[in-house]
């Protein structure tokens, strides 16, 4: 069969997302998130979303748009102090918020991507964020059982894709993107540039193409 291109229009990408979906979005403090995809989603009628991300940007900025725009049912992440609207909405009972320590959060997303159901980490043992989680001793130290975090859709931001969907990132804009690309049923990558197959160094590909289902090429817009 001739290979089908993974490059899609923004409409095609957004049409693949449903209200109520669990959506991972790459980002760290407004760095390295798929800006066009987030923009298009906030212009869509999608609602009741569970957003799985490190933080939620700032009020009305970056991932913060989802909340300002009333599209959020729940958040799973680790740091919302940059966006006070999160605590407000949570206190008002408008959204659920699940905090997972940043390292456990990253590892749990990776676990989902690599087929590990759960893992024991020392982080949060005995603390409020360890409550309700199984605790177990290994070599005299307490560990908490953290379960994998899956999503229906991952929206990731990469610097470049080749035509197959191999991805490379840019500096600290890498953050959670390669992990989320592995952990969702559908992975949509927004990239600055699509280059011909063979242009990326095989030693330097960060996300091999098998993890990527759709590509939004910002360089073509």
């Amino acid at each position, binding site marked *: 069969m*001739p290979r089908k291109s993974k490059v899609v229009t923004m409409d095609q990408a957004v049409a693949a997302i449903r209200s109520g979906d669990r959506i991972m979005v790459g980002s760290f403090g407004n760095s390295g998130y798929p800006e066009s995809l987030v923009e298009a989603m906030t212009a869509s009628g999608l609602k009741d979303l569970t957003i799985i991300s490190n933080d939620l940007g700032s009020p009305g900025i970056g991932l913060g748009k989802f909340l300002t725009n009333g599209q959020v049912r729940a958040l799973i992440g680790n740091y919302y102090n940059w966006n006070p609207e999160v605590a407000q909405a949570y206190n008002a009972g408008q959204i659920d918020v699940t905090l997972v320590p940043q390292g456990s959060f990253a590892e749990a997303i990776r676990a989902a991507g690599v087929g590990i159901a759960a893992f024991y980490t020392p982080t949060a043992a005995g603390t409020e964020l360890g409550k309700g989680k199984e605790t177990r001793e290994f070599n005299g130290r307490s560990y908490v059982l953290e379960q994998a975090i899956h999503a229906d859709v991952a929206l990731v931001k990469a610097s470049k894709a080749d035509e197959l969907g191999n991805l490379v990132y840019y500096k600290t804009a890498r953050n959670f993107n390669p992990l989320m690309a592995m952990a969702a049923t559908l992975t949509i990558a927004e990239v600055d540039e699509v280059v011909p197959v063979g242009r990326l160094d095989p030693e330097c590909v960060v996300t091999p193409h098998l993890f990527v289902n759709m590509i939004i090429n910002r360089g073509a817009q």
Partner: protein
Amino acid sequence: MKEIIPAEQARTRIARRIAREFMERDETLIINLGVGIPTMVANYIQGDSIFIQAENGMMGVGPKADGDSADRRLINAGREPVTETPGCSYFDSAASFGMIRGGHVDATVIGAFEVDEAGSIANWIIPNGRQLGVGGAMDLVSGARQVIVAMRHNGRDGRPKLVRSCSLPVTGFHEADLVVTELGVFRFIDGVMTLTEIAPETDPARLADLTDAAFVTSTGIRTMDT
């Protein structure tokens, strides 16, 4: 026991049939090929939408390298020198098995000593004291989305390899989706081993005699390509 089909012809037939299985699917596929007949499947794949993953850390494995171009640091999981394809990539063994365990590999083609009626597969060890190794077999059968077994219908001693229940140590339980031998194509449909294609050299009754496992013959059974 007299061979119905000569060995090399049998191996080619099996490999080609599995290649067709992939090429009939109108989508990009990521596949992992074990040693032996499974590796031969690559010879019959055409087009540019099927990609071979090697569990020792490569996506986009190309044809075997011949003498001059062989690089002992570029090998497949069977230790054979291979080549690159455009768009290939390299990664470590944890990332590689992450792809497999995480369900990102569409199909694995493996050899087997036995496959039983429950779809359980024995392919990692014959406990004869001479083998001591599992490799990636257990990870592949439990992780790949589709598990395709490529094997001769009977062993060298003539014993059926499709059995009622595995007598050898099992690699994975209820994992087989498709078994292709030189005599037939068996699909596990709702958990039932179902003969869907049969070689022209035989018929369902004779095939049942050569088979220990009980199987159902599909009402839409077809003749297997030779």
